[in-house]
């Protein structure tokens, strides 16, 4: 049985596993265009490199760079996740490193969502050791309620409430990345009742 078949009463246009659309496709497109314009202004005369952290941010990156009217480079990194670790005593690892040096470059890390900030905290330490001229963060979604680390985010698309969201690159169990909107996943999908209020 698929998840979709469990929720026959879902409104049309919304995935059956999504209980609410938090950000529509139009809202996302408009805000991403604004961020692109902001980067264009802030990095005028420079040649920044935008680093996308797989996998969640690729959709955001693809739309964002098309709104940046500057010569720029793109690089891709992938960092292992706690949940995917097979050893209980494992540690975060770089699964896909930078393809080109960033020493002396103006770097913008492009993230889909920042919640605890633990992954980004690790990544920023790693990138700083590479000697970039500058290092800034651009994220689509900021979920500050969950933050454990103190990270200054330079460009934020949306600040969102403390709910589990999928779509526009964000997944649960590798699904839902292709949804054009950001929606709240039904707790029943991950096998839990809604949290007690």
């Amino acid at each position: 049985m698929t998840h979709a078949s469990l929720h026959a009463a879902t409104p049309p246009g919304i995935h059956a596993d999504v209980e609410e659309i938090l950000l529509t496709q139009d809202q996302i497109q408009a805000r991403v265009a604004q961020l692109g314009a902001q980067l264009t202004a802030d990095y005028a005369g420079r040649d920044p490199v935008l680093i996308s952290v797989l996998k969640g941010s690729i959709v955001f990156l693809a739309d964002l760079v098309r709104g940046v009217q500057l010569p720029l480079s793109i690089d891709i990194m992938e960092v292992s996740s706690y949940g995917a670790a097979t050893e209980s005593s494992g540690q975060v690892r770089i699964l896909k490193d930078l393809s080109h040096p960033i020493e002396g470059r103006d770097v913008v890390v492009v993230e889909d969502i920042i919640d605890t900030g633990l992954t980004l905290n690790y990544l920023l330490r790693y990138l700083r050791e590479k000697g970039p001229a500058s290092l800034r963060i651009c994220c689509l979604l900021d979920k500050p309620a969950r933050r454990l680390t103190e990270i200054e985010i330079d460009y934020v698309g949306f600040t969102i409430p403390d709910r589990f969201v999928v779509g526009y690159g964000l997944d649960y169990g590798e699904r839902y990345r292709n949804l054009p909107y950001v929606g709240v996943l039904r707790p029943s999908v991950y096998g839990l009742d809604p949290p007690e209020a």
Partner: protein
Amino acid sequence: MALLSEAPPPRFAHDSEAELARVLDFYQVSWRYEPDVFPITWSPSGAVVESFAPDFYLPELDLYVELTTLRQSLVRRKNRKLRLLRQLYPGVRIKLLYARDFQALMVKYGRVDVLLDMNGVNGSNRTNGMNGNGAEHR
């Protein structure tokens, strides 16, 4: 500093604390378990009546983390202690993770099995009353 796997781990009072320690280890964030005790109420004679020992201190982030997997309806007492701590020690940065926060963290990492293993995250499986040893782990 040592990795959790390399140093004798403290005796955690709850499985959720051990799991959070593993998450911090994974992301190479050093931590100490219950290293400090903050007095929060005193008797008229000046004796400490009540104190608060946050579960974790993250030295690199200068942040205390208190993890409570009690049901929300039962956390009023802890909220009161936290409020007092913040009033008395305004320079201390502390983050309280409620049951719903821990649940969301496990869902994010696809570790719903951890929640199920904890018998519904009801906070009833505190295994002992041991305090932490204050040793730093990384």
